[in-house]
C-alpha cells in the first residue's frame, strides 16, 4: 500500500463535503466523543470496538446481536432491531467502521460486517460518523472489489453526504440520506 493513499482518500472525501478528522489511535476516543457530543442518541451497530464507545457521554442505542459476538457494552441494554422510527428521531447520530475505503474517489464501503450493522442504521439518522484506519484504504474501485471479504453481503458505497444534481445539474448536499458525514481517519 502506498503511504499516500490515506491522505488522498481524506482529500477526495473532503472534496465531496464529508467532514474529515485526522487522529492517532490514542486520540480516537476523544475525537469521537467530541463529534458525537451534540447527538440526542448514538446508534451503535453490533461488533463496534469497545474503546470507540467508552468515551461517549450521550445515550446509546445498540442494534441487534453482533454477527461477531455480543456487543458487550455495559452502557446500555441491547435493543434487538431498532425500528426506522427509532432511527428517525431528532438528533440521532450513528457511529460505524467500514470494510474498505477507496482513495481515488474518497469512498467508504460498508458490508454489514462487524462494527457496521444493517444498511438502515447508516441511512435514516441525519448524522453518520465513520472511522477509517489507514490499512483499510485501497487505491481504486477495482482494488476495492478484490479487497472485499464477501461480495454477496449487502454493500453500500458512500461518497460524501446524500446529494442531488437534479436542479440545474449543480450538486447540492443533503437529501434523503444523512445530511452530515464525518470521517475519522486513524493514522
Amino acid at each position: 500500500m502506498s503511504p499516500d493513499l490515506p491522505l488522498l482518500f481524506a482529500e477526495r472525501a473532503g472534496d465531496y463535503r464529508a467532514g474529515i478528522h485526522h487522529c492517532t489511535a490514542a486520540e480516537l476516543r476523544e475525537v469521537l466523543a467530541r463529534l458525537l457530543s451534540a447527538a440526542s442518541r448514538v446508534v451503535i451497530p453490533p461488533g463496534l470496538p469497545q474503546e470507540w464507545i467508552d468515551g461517549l457521554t450521550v445515550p446509546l442505542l445498540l442494534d441487534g446481536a453482533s454477527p461477531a459476538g455480543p456487543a458487550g457494552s455495559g452502557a446500555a441494554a441491547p435493543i434487538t432491531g431498532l425500528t426506522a422510527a427509532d432511527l428517525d428521531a431528532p438528533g440521532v447520530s450513528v457511529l460505524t467502521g467500514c470494510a474498505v475505503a477507496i482513495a481515488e474517489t474518497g469512498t467508504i464501503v460498508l458490508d454489514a460486517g462487524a462494527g457496521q450493522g444493517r444498511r438502515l442504521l447508516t441511512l435514516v439518522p441525519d448524522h453518520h460518523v465513520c472511522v477509517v484506519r489507514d490499512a483499510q484504504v485501497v487505491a481504486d474501485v477495482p482494488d476495492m472489489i478484490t479487497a472485499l471479504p464477501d461480495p454477496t453481503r449487502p454493500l453500500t458505497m458512500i461518497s460524501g453526504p446524500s446529494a442531488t444534481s437534479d436542479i440545474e445539474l449543480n450538486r447540492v448536499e443533503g437529501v434523503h440520506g444523512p445530511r452530515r458525514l464525518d470521517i475519522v481517519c486513524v493514522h
Partner: protein
Amino acid sequence: MSRELPIVAGEAFAEAARRELGDAQLRANLGRATRTIRDKRARVVAEVPDWEALRDRAAAVKDDVIARLPKLLTQFEQAVTAAGATVHHARDAAQANAIVTELVRAEQADQVVKIKSMATQEIGLNEALEAAGITPIETDLAELIVQLADDTPSHILVPAIHYNRSQIRELFARRMPGFTAASDEPAVLAGAAREYLRRTFLAAKVAVCGANFAVAETGSLVIVESEGNGRMCLTLPETLIAVVGVEKLLPRFADLGDFLRLLPRSSTGERMNPYTSIFTGVTPGDGPRRLHVVLLDNGRTTVAQDPVGRAALRCIRCSACLNVCPVYERAGGHAYGSVYPGPIGAILSPQLTGQDAGFNRTLPYASTLCGACYDVCPVKINIPEILIHLRQTGPKPAAERAAMASLSWVMRDRRRWRLALRAARTGSAPLRALTRRRGGTLHRAPWPLSAWTRHRDAPLPAAETFRDWWRRTHES
C-alpha cells in the same frame, strides 16, 4: 395523442423540435445545464490516465454479454434464486407490467415507492399501476418534479433538466403539501423533498427499482444513485421488485471495477456518486424479506441479432451523449418522443420498437453525425455509425429515393457528370449575374431548396468548374 409505448415517437422529430425551439426559457435552461455537466465530466475524465483503455475493456465486456446473453441470464437466474430471490421473465412491456401489478396486489399494497428506473419508464409501468388502482410514487427528486408537474422526462439522468430552480420552487408551492419556502436555493428545494417523502418511505410496503448492473456470477444487483431515496427503497419496504433489462448483465463481479469508474464520471461528472448499493438476493434481518427480479426483454434479443445495431445494447444509461449533443441541447428531450432522448435514444427507440412504429423513422435523422456522442460514450458505442445504419435500413420518402437514384446515375458516369456540371453552370448563369452584387449567393429558392434558403443563402454553381479549369490550365 395516443402512443403504443413511451419509447415510440408520436410526432416527426423536425416538427417537435421546431415547437420546442420556440421555448426560449427551455433553451436557456438546457444550455446552462448541459454546459455545466459537460465541463464537469471533462474535468473528472481528464483525471483518469487510462480512460481509453477503460472504455475499450467495458465495450468488450458488454459485447461479450450481448453475445452470450441466454447463457449469462441462466447463470444470473440460478445465482440470484439461490440467494433467495424469485425470478420472472417478461417478453414485452405488457407482460412485465402484468407481473409487477400482480406482485403488488399479492402484497395488498395500494401504493409503491419507486427508484428512478429507465426500464420501468420504457414499459409505462406507472400508467399500468395507476390503471390497476395502485399509486406509484417517484422518489428521485427530478422524477418527483416531473410527476408533480404532470410532465414527461426530458433527460435520462436528470428528467427535469428543462426546469430551472425558480420554476421548481413555483411548482412545489403549487403542488407539494406543506411547502412554504420563499427561497429557490437548490438546497432548500432538496430539503423540502426530504420532508415530503420521509413519511412515505417509513410507511412503504413495496418498492420498485431497476438496476444499473446485474452480475451473472453472483446474482448481485447494483443501484447507483445520489440522494439516498434508492437506499430507502432498497432497505425499508418488506418487498422489493426489480425490473431489469436483460442487457444490464455483467459476467463477473470483478467487472464492476471498471464500470463503477466509468459510470459516475460520465453521468454526473463526479469521481463517484454519493451512494451505490450492491445486494445479492435477500439478507435475513437486513432489507426486504422478498425480492422479485423481473428480467425484461422488450425487443432486446431482436436488437442483439443486428450485427451493427446491437452495440446500442452496451448502453449503461449515463446520458453523457445527451449532454454533448448540439441537437439535444437545442431541441430538448421531449422532441424525441421517447423516454430515451438524445443520440442514444435516436438509435435505441427505433431499434427496440421498430422504425415503422409511430415516427421512429425520423429519429435516425435527428443528428448531424458530428461524433461528439461517440467521443464521450463510456462503452464506445459508435452512435454515428448506427444512425447511418438505421437510415440505410429504414423507410425513406419516394421523392428522395428517386432524387438520390438519379443523382448517383449521373455521378457514376464521367461523361454524364461533366455534362451535368456544364448544364448546372449554364442554367445558373443568369442567377449568378443577378446575385453578383451580393457575393454570388442565392437568397431565396423554390421547394425543396427553400428549406435551405429559409435560414441561409445558397451557393450557385461556379462560372467555371474545377475540371474545366484543369482542362484549360493543365491539358492544353
